[in-house]
Every structure is written in C-alpha cells, then in structure tokens.
C-alpha cells in the first residue's frame, strides 16, 4: 500500500470529518502528484477549507488517513507534516516586524542564526520584500502582507504549500497581479501546492487539476479545460464559467436512428453530441455556454434557430445578449462590435458537440 505513494506528494484516503452529527467531509479520496498545483473549488460551506485544515493538521479527522511524501501524518502535529500555510486574513503576527514574522517558525524550530538569515534573504529576494523587512505588518499594504504571508511558508522549506483563499481579501487588480505571481512562484519552486478558492478564475488560471467540491464531496477532479468543457454534472457545469452556462429543460427523444433534445417547439438534433453512455429517452437538461453560441453568423451550423433580443449587457470586451429559447432564459456572448439592438430579431447557431446534457433528476452527465 505504501509503495503506491511514490510520486505522490499528498494522498488523502477515505477521509471523513464529522462535527457532532453533521458530516462535513464524506469518505473523501484525493491524490496530489509531486509538484502538482491542485485547486479545491466550491461554494462556501462545501468543506474545501475544512479539507485543507485537515491536511495541515489543524483539525482532527474522524476517519481515514493522510499521507504526505509517503509518510502517514494522520496523527502528526502541523509542524511535523512538512507543510506551509497561507491564510486569507494573512495572519501575520501584528507586533513583530516582517523579518521576525518570517523567522518565527525557524526560531521555534531552533535553527542556527546564520541559517535563518540565509533563508530569510532568499525568501525576501524571491518575493521582492527586502525593503519591508524592518516594518510592522500594520505599515504594509494588503498585497505586501500577503507576500509576507507567502514568505513565511517559503522560509520553512517545505514540500507542500497550502493556500486558504489567499487572494480573497485583495481588490480585483491586486488579485490578478498576485495570481500571476503565485503561478510564477510555482513554476520556480516546483512545490506541490493545494489551493482553496471560491473564485473560478483563480481556479482555471492556476490549477493543473481542479477538484470541484460540494457538500463535502469532490464532484469532479480533472484538468481545468476538461472540467470546463465536459462537466460531470449540472452543479459543476453551473459553478464554472462566467457568465454561467445556459440550461434549457426538456426531453431526450429518439427520432428514427438519431437522438434529439426537445423542449416545446425547439428540437435540437444531437448527431454530433458525444454521449457518455447509452442514452435513454426521458426528461433532460440541455446546457451550453454563452460563448459557444453564435449570433447572426449564417446557417452553416448543425443547429440554428431564431429569437428576439430581450436585454443587452455590455461588459467592455464583449457583450452578453439575453433572449428566450423555448420560453427559457438564454444568453449569448458576442464581441462588442456585433452587439444587436433590443427587440432585434436574430438567428443563433451552435454545434451540439460543445453542449452538455444532464439527467433532469440526478443532474449527472448523459
């Protein structure tokens, strides 16, 4: 069993966590490869931060085991797990200077003075916080504070970095800047990183693999593009993507030798759609992303229909056009030059190959 840990940095096996009668994490399994960047993504209350705290050893688990670098750390103290952690609120020690903040863990571990100095110098250089070393956290901006917080994990020279929503307290501009910096840092250090966020952009841009969580269960664990293009259920499909995926409720029906999706007068032939298994006729949900629908671009599409524009939402780089398909709300993303007017009659076309079909009852992909 332990031989299977080779090449695996973090391995979570059958992990459960209950608070009293409430089950927060349910028999969860997750293997993170050496040097991999895994993002835990989900709405608040889905257990993603709890899972990270379990890996860090800050929460006692109810069942299961956790391996880090092949070592069973289920009962280990946080400091003995070879992890560094970065928190949303930075959690810098307010009465210590940046330098003392960085060195605290090393001083606790009793490292020799010159080693501490060396490690701080290295971390400060990587994160470009050298001029800030003698300042107190209160004299730093949000971005600088988070950099110091990352530095505190960096100096500990650990195998695994744990990030708990590190960018959520920053404004939009700083967030995108630091996002790039974290990505660069990962490329430079090649450490294993587990990153918790509810921001799908962070997840898409940073992750090697995303684990989408809901209700203490990992819904889908895959590369960002796979999760985006082939979500395993309706929840994952709706959670990822902004603007969100369109869902049209209707029925799956067999006509002759081909399947089609039917909702009121709408009939979408599914000749190009790749079914996950053997489809069955019945209630289903048809999902397609707004950017996969084309407006007024001829009739060369496997499927096209016409509709009236209801509302137009300009978003700068492009525009979201709202209309109704089979009496249900439907959005299309177009470039801003091709923005139609309100009430204008338009034709829209798409390839069902890019769509996702879900079971109306279970929400699972068909």
């Amino acid at each position: 069993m332990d031989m299977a840990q080779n090449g695996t940095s973090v391995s979570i096996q059958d992990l459960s966590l209950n608070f009293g009668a409430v089950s927060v994490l349910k028999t969860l399994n997750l293997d993170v490869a050496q040097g991999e960047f895994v993002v835990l993504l989900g709405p608040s209350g889905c257990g993603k931060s709890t899972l990270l705290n379990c890996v860090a050893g800050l929460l006692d688990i109810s069942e299961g085991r956790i391996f880090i670098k092949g070592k069973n750390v289920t009962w280990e103290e946080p400091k003995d797990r070879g992890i560094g952690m970065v928190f949303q609120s930075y959690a810098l020690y307010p009465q210590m200077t940046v330098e003392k903040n960085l060195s605290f863990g090393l001083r606790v571990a009793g490292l020799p003075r010159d080693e501490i100095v060396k490690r701080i110098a290295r971390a400060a250089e990587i994160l470009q916080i050298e001029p800030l070393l003698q300042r107190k956290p209160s004299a730093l901006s949000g971005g600088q504070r988070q950099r110091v917080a990352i530095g505190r994990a960096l100096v500990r020279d650990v195998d695994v970095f744990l990030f708990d929503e590190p960018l959520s307290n920053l404004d939009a501009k700083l967030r995108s800047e630091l996002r790039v910096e974290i990505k660069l840092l990962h490329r430079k250090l090649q450490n294993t990183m587990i990153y918790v966020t509810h921001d799908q952009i962070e997840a898409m841009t940073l992750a090697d693999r995303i684990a989408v969580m809901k209700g203490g269960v990992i819904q889908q664990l895959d590369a960002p593009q796979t999760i985006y293009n082939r979500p395993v259920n309706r929840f994952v499909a709706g959670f990822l993507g902004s603007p969100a995926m369109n869902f049209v409720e209707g029925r799956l029906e067999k006509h002759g030798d081909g399947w089609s999706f039917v909702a009121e007068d709408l009939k979408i032939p599914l000749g190009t759609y790749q079914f996950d298994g053997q489809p069955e006729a019945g209630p289903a949900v048809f999902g397609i992303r707004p950017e996969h629908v084309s407006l007024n671009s001829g009739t060369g599409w496997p499927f096209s229909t016409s509709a009236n524009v209801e509302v137009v939402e300009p978003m700068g780089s492009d525009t979201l056009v709202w209309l109704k398909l089979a009496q249900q709300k439907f959005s299309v993303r177009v470039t801003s030059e091709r923005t139609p007017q309100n009430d204008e009659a338009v034709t829209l076309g798409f390839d069902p190959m890019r769509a996702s079909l879900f079971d109306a009852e279970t929400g699972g992909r068909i």
Partner: protein
Amino acid sequence: MTAAQITAIQPVQDAQDQTGVAPFGPKPRHVSPGRIGIYVFLVIAALFFLIPVYIMIVTSLKGMPEIRLGHLFSLPAEPTFQPWADAWLHACTGRDCNGLSPGFYNSLKITVPSVIISIICASINGYALTFWPYKGANLLFGLLVFGAFVPYQVVIYPLIIGLSSVGLFATLPGIIIVHTIFGMPILTLLFRNFYAALPVELFKAARVDGAGFWRIFFSIMLPMSVPITVVAIILQVTGIWNDFLFGIVFAGRSNWPMTVQLNNIVNTTTGVREYNVNMAATILTAAVPLIIYFVSGRWFVRGIAAGAVKG
C-alpha cells in the same frame, strides 16, 4: 453629466433657507435652546455631585475650632495640613495611634500580588478556553461566568472554614487567594472575549510554525493583550483597594487594609470626634482609585463596559 453641469452653473435655483443663503460648503452649526438646556443641566449635576468632595477638602484643611463654628461651606480661614499629617501618622484605632500609613502598606501588600496573580491566571484561562477547547471547556466557562453572580456573603463562611483548615485564615496569602478567586470569573470572561475576537488564523499560523501552548501564549498572544491587560489592572486595583468585607474577614488584624483602618479611625468613639482628620483620612484612602480613574480615562470606560455584567 450634463445635468450636473447645468445645476452647477445655476446656483440661483437652489433652495434657500430662511437666511437667504444657498447651501454651499459645510453645513452651518446652530446652537439650539435644547442643547443649552442639556449643558446647563450637566453643569448643575456635576456641581451637585462635587459638593461632598468640596466639603471634604475644605473641612480637612480647617482646625477643630473653626469646624465647631459650623460654617460647612466656608473656605478655611487658617488653612492647615496638620489633619492630613495626623491622619497619615497619628490617628488612633483603639489603642494604636499610628495613623493610616500601616493600612496603606497593607493594602499595597494585598493589592499588588492579588492583581498580578489573578491577571496571570485569568489570561491563561481565557487563552486556553478560546484556542485549546477541551472536553467540558464550555461547561467550565459557564460555571466561571455563573461565579460572577454569586453574592460574596454566601461563600464567606465556607471560605473561612476552608482556609483555616489549611492554616491560611487571617494571613496575607489567605486574603490574596480570596481576591484571586473572586477576580477569576470576570477577568476570565474579559480575556476570553478578547481572545475570541482575534482572528483564529493567527493561532493556526503559529501552530503551523511549530509553536506550542506556551510559546503561542507568550510570543503571540501576550504581546497583543496589552489593552485588555490595562483594563484588567484597572478593574482589579480599584476593586481590591476598595474592598472592605474580605479585608476585615480574611486579612487578619496585622494585615488589615486601608479601608478597614479608615473605618476604625472614623468610628473610634473615645475622645473628640476629629472631623478634619476623618476627612483627610477618607481622601487619602480614596486617593489610589481616584488617581487611577483620572490617569486611565479612556481605558477605564472600556473597563466599565467590560465589567458591566458584574453590576
């Protein structure tokens, strides 16, 4: 945008108040009759409550012949500090005529250790209750808070029995223990609430950094606790200094605090009643809490707010 420009170049159309001035810039401040009334009332109330203080001070500076004239409010004709010196050094309690000074030193000996020990215990209590929840921690905290509402008189007798059985009744350590115990509920509540308001991530970060129970307490939490410690010191110093009941019961004759000695001086029934000395002695006894009130201003308000549950 254009609408804003139009109004900007047409101030004539602005609504004008009674004075005919269009609203522009800072709003003018009016002194309303209601406000004047409030200030008049406050000044009168303050003067009313200062009258006893005034009488105490002027009486303490008069000689006995002048006091016998009965002019309570008049300033001293021949100011003298002799009553203050007498109160401090020569006033009699029964047969001892050493003044208040032994009581002052006794109060110091009781207050300083009690304050230090109770605050150390309470801060550790609050820290452990907040960050290291153990089985029954909430129950313990509930019991502690309940303790804040137990009337002192109820537990005096059991405490006497308990302390005398271990030979600590009527001793300095005995009274220090009593003050420490009775300070515990309110102080623990104070520290626990303070620590509970700190971000828990700070504690988690310190644990990831490898710090243990004491290291986190001394390196992270204690340096952040200065404000709440000041509040706790104010609460405890004033409370213990002003205490009379525990002092007379548990301290023992040789350790009687200043409040008990003051009572004995004022209530001495033999000879002439020296009002000037009594007044000086009372002011001297109240001086320590008074100085703390004045010096610690804003901290004290917080202390009152925090201690509000104690009533």
